[in-house]
């Protein structure tokens, strides 16, 4: 399970952020489904040769984001999708980021339609598997 995580040192993203991003993406793309167990902190730390505290911190962040739940003495599991809900502030941050991307795309000379197509095709990378895992929950 741990092998899909790739830590790159010397990157602009700190190790902690790389962990959060890669696990969040795996959950969003459905490669990790509700109830799947994340590797144990110590196991992941030794496999990736990174500090166990960093892994624990990343897991804690994912838990605060309601993407995973930690069951005492058992481990960390991907949380039920029903428990995830973005509040207004989070949606605000998201739309601001989208605005930045749109600005850049327009500056590069892309038309609104092209941009919409790109967005749709990217969304497909997440859409399918996600829907499947959603159905399983219902």
């Amino acid at each position, binding site marked *: 399970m741990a092998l899909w995580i790739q*830590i790159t*040192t*010397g*990157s*602009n*993203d*700190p*190790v*902690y952020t790389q962990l959060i991003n890669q696990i969040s993406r795996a959950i969003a793309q459905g490669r990790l489904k509700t109830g799947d167990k994340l590797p144990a902190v*110590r196991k992941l*730390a*030794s496999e990736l*040769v*990174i*500090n*166990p*505290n*960093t892994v624990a*911190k990343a897991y804690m962040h994912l838990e605060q984001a309601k993407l995973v739940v930690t069951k005492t003495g058992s481990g960390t599991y991907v949380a039920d999708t029903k428990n995830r809900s973005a509040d207004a502030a989070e949606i605000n941050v998201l739309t601001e980021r989208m605005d930045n991307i749109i600005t850049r795309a327009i500056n590069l000379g892309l038309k609104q339609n092209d941009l919409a197509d790109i967005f749709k095709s990217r969304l497909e990378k997440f859409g399918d598997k996600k829907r499947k895992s959603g159905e399983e929950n219902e």
Partner: protein
Amino acid sequence: MSEIILETKGLTKYFSNKAALEKFDLQIPRGCICGFVGRNGAGKTTAIKLMLGLLKPTAGSSAILDCDSMSLTPKIRRRVGYVTEGHRLFRWMTIAGLESFQKPFFDNQWDDKFFSEMIDYFELSKKQKIKHLSNGQWAQVSLALALAPHPELLIMDDPTLGLDPAIRRQFLQGMIRLIMQQGRTVLFSSHILSDVERVSNQIVVIDKGRLRAHCSIERFRESIKKVKFSFADKVPTDIDIEGLVNCRIIGNELELILVETPQEKIAQWAASEDAENYEIVPMNLEDQFIEFTEPKKRGKLFQWENN
């Protein structure tokens, strides 16, 4: 706050009349891997030697495991591992000889099985003489010797200097393996920021004998920012903004290196100086370190930079 395993208070060391370390205050909590970074001559080795009682401070004090560094007892010393810069070992001894020399200092703490496993893993034989080993093999023997007693506190002075990436990785694995044991702590100095980034959860930055930063790696990464401001015509030269450590003017752009400057202060400053816009430029740890410790220079290092 967890227990402090290493503490220095106003630690100062002068060599003739030059300060190698000045008013150095540090507290290392138990259970972390702390990357100790600083440029050549910044005072890392001096600080480490003072912590271990191998040098006498000019002023101030240092303590490890609640014992003053100048009066460390054998009982305390056996709980501390130390890897010297350059991995100095007795050249005329065999690996087995070194093992039987070191072992009695550590009482029943010495893990024979673990030591032998490491020597096997490194494809060495205990019959080999130190003087016949390569630099990398010296380092491996020194790592095995340091880890065999499972020290509570492991201090390593630039342990990966001049080692190939594979042996460097073995050192990092060794540190991770040690830290997995309850209550173990590692302090290691290094110039290889990618190694520090990989295994440390705390970073200590020393510059010209003074402590510049001590915090979690995450906080260090978040705190040091490069911000690029664009101006319509004149770039301001009199810059007054909280946390400024370095600045550079490139055409009509101004690049500031800011430390712990709140976002709103950056926005306010940009507005007050009539900047057209500004963006935060991502930096990796090495860039952050260089920007943080590099003094403001008047001239250029190389003439061809003046294009």
